[in-house]
Each structure stands twice: as C-alpha cells, then as structure tokens.
C-alpha cells in the first residue's frame, strides 16, 4: 500500500478517504481537517488564548498538540476526578505531555478543591457517574476560563463522539439538544465560547495522530464508562461505517450543513435569562434552593457530595468491570 500523496509506503488505510497515507501525510490530513473546522465555524482569532480541556486521553492531547503546532497560544486544564487509579494515570499522561512541549497546565482537583470526587458525587446524588462527572467538568471549564480571561474553551470531541451524540439525540428527537449540538458555541451570559476543532476527524485518526507523533496517552477506559449508551451508539455507527465508508462523516457533517441551520431559531430561543449562583457566582438557569436563593446545579451537587463519606470507585463499577479489573491486577 502506498501513500496517496507521495507514493512512499503507507502506514494507515483510511477507507472513508478511499486512500492510504504515510505518517507525514496522515499528519497533513489531520492538520488540514482541523484548520478547515476552525475556519468553517470561525472558531478562533489568531491572538486568542485557548484553554484546552485535557483528560490524558488521545483526543484532548491530539487537539492540544495540533493547536500548539498551528501557532495558537494554549494552556491545558486537567481536572482530577478522583476515579481511582484511572485518574492518577491519566494525570501523569497530561503532565508528561505538557512538560515535554513546555506548555502550561492548570490542574484542578475535585477532591482537594471541592471536597468530593466523581464516585462519591454519583452515589450521593443518585446520578449515573458520567452525568455527575460531565456536569462537574463543564462547570470547572467555564469557571477557570472566566477567571483566567481565556477566549475559548477547547475540547477534544471527535467525529465519532459527535455522531454518537447526534444518533442519541435523533433517537429521542430531542430537538433542544439537536439545536445546540454545534462545533462552536459562542460566549453568552457569562459562559465562555466553546469549540470542538476535531469534529472532522474520526477517533481512529486522532489515535493514529498520537501514535505517529509519539504521544503517550491513557489507553485504558475509564472504569465508569462500561456499558454506557454512548459506546453502544459508536459501535452501531462503526458497523454502518464498515459497510459504507464515509457514512459517519456524511451523517454528522451533513447534519451541520443541512439540518442545523433549520434548527437555529430554536437555539436562539434558548439564549434565555440567566441568574447568578448565590454560592459561586456562576451564571445559571434559575434553579432555586430551599431557602429561595438561586444555586447552580454544580453547587447543589457538591453540597450533597461533600456531606457524603468517600465512595471508592470499585463500588460503582459493574460486576463485569470489577472482574476485569481484578483479573488485570493479578496480571
């Protein structure tokens, strides 16, 4: 197999492009797709200071690497979620990457800075872990961006992530979520601008980027992810993709091009009134506490979770995930 661009030996086949690429031209393709996403959705100005949410996984390290390479001023933000060994390891990958590139990394710890962790919050509130986790992360991204004066928050969501979320939203015809499922959300009411520059790259491509660039990342899955719907949607879409290469891209990018504009009236309606949280000052839809003050969802979650004794991650893992972890520990 030869590289489509230079005819040297290829290192990867990309059926959706009906082509193979060498390491150099795979990188060129990834860079161009990111530049196109940035350009088409007018994500950034050249002078913007970007806060990159890094998890230690392939996507967030890839997006940080690419934006840095493209000349953007970037700072990483790692949030220690307190998910046992998985969190420790992923933090190391984030720190190592930052150190090797000489890039600044802000670290915020749920346990040290807020008095709880994801497993405890899930147990204390009865939410599924990913919901407690996602809400905490979004809150912290927003606050760090606001306090630090960053121009935008960048996340590593890729084409597979967005196609899977689109699939879930379309299965429920959740038009409010559909209207907001965009690669760029402008700043509004104290919330920072949010951008997803990897939406034109599949996760196979972002993983390949990391491998050819020598970036070590956490390959192990978060132990809380097992069995979530998001994974099932991704697998379903990959079955379709194997039968008709390019299906994921045309599904999601076609949504952006032809469907999202029809929904834009709805997302404008949602730019509704926001109040300030009485505890932390963050903007929030008017959620009211028992004493009549307005308290944001994160502060309500953290109040409950702080009062709960710490819950070890194993207690929230499914039986099969626990068995697999025990087996792995035995070697």
């Amino acid at each position: 197999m030869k590289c489509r661009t230079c005819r040297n030996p290829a290192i990867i086949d990309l059926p959706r492009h009906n082509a193979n690429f060498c390491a150099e031209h795979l990188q060129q393709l990834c860079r161009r797709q990111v530049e196109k996403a940035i350009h088409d959705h007018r994500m950034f100005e050249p002078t913007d200071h970007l806060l990159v949410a890094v998890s230690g996984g392939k996507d967030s390290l890839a997006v940080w690497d690419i934006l840095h390479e493209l000349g953007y001023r970037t700072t990483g933000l790692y949030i220690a979620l307190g998910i046992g060994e998985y969190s420790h390891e992923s933090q190391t990958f984030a720190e190592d990457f930052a150190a090797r590139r000489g890039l600044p990394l802000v670290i915020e710890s749920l346990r040290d800075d807020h008095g709880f962790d994801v497993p405890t919050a899930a147990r204390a509130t009865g939410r599924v872990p990913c919901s407690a986790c996602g809400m905490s992360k979004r809150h912290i991204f927003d606050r760090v961006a606001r306090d630090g004066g960053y121009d935008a928050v960048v996340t590593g969501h890729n084409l597979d992530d967005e196609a899977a979320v689109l699939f879930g939203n379309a299965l429920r015809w959740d038009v409010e979520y559909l209207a907001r499922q965009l690669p760029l959300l402008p700043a509004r009411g104290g919330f920072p601008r949010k951008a997803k520059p990897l939406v034109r790259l599949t996760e196979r491509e972002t993983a390949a980027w990391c491998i050819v660039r020598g970036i070590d990342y956490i390959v192990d899955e978060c132990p809380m992810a097992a069995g979530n719907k998001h994974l099932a949607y991704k697998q379903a879409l990959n079955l379709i993709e194997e039968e008709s290469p390019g299906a994921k891209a045309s599904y999601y990018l076609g949504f952006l091009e032809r469907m999202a504009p029809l929904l834009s009236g709805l997302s404008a309606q949602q730019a509704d009134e926001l109040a300030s949280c009485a505890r932390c000052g963050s903007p929030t839809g008017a959620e009211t506490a028992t004493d009549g003050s307005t308290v944001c969802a994160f502060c309500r979650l953290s109040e409950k979770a702080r009062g709960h004794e710490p819950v070890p991650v194993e207690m929230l893992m499914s039986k099969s995930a626990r068995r697999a972890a025990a087996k792995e520990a035995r070697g």
Partner: protein
Amino acid sequence: MRVLLRNPRREITIDGRRRVHALLNELGLSREAHLVIRNGELVPGDGELNDDDEIEIRPVISGG
C-alpha cells in the same frame, strides 16, 4: 505472533503469518475501531504480520 489486547489488557498468541485485516476479522474486531502497532509503528490493513512479531491491537473507541 504475540498479540497484546487492551481493555482489559491481555495477551494472546496467534500462529502463522497474517495480514492485519485478516487478523482483525479473525478476532472479530472492527477495523474502524482498532489500530495495529508493531515496534511503535502503525501497520496498515494489508500489512503482513510475521510469526515472530510482537504487536498491539489498540482499541480507539472511548466512552466518556
């Protein structure tokens, strides 16, 4: 060849030469969801794997 699989981490042995695609099919693994790495380098779908190779089949789907 020795094959390292992830999530959970385990190792299996496969006898005989194979192309990458054939190996993935045999193991029932989606081409769209995996990459094959030998000595730190990617091996494309039609790449030949030898009996004495040590490879990693790395899943690329993440579930957050």
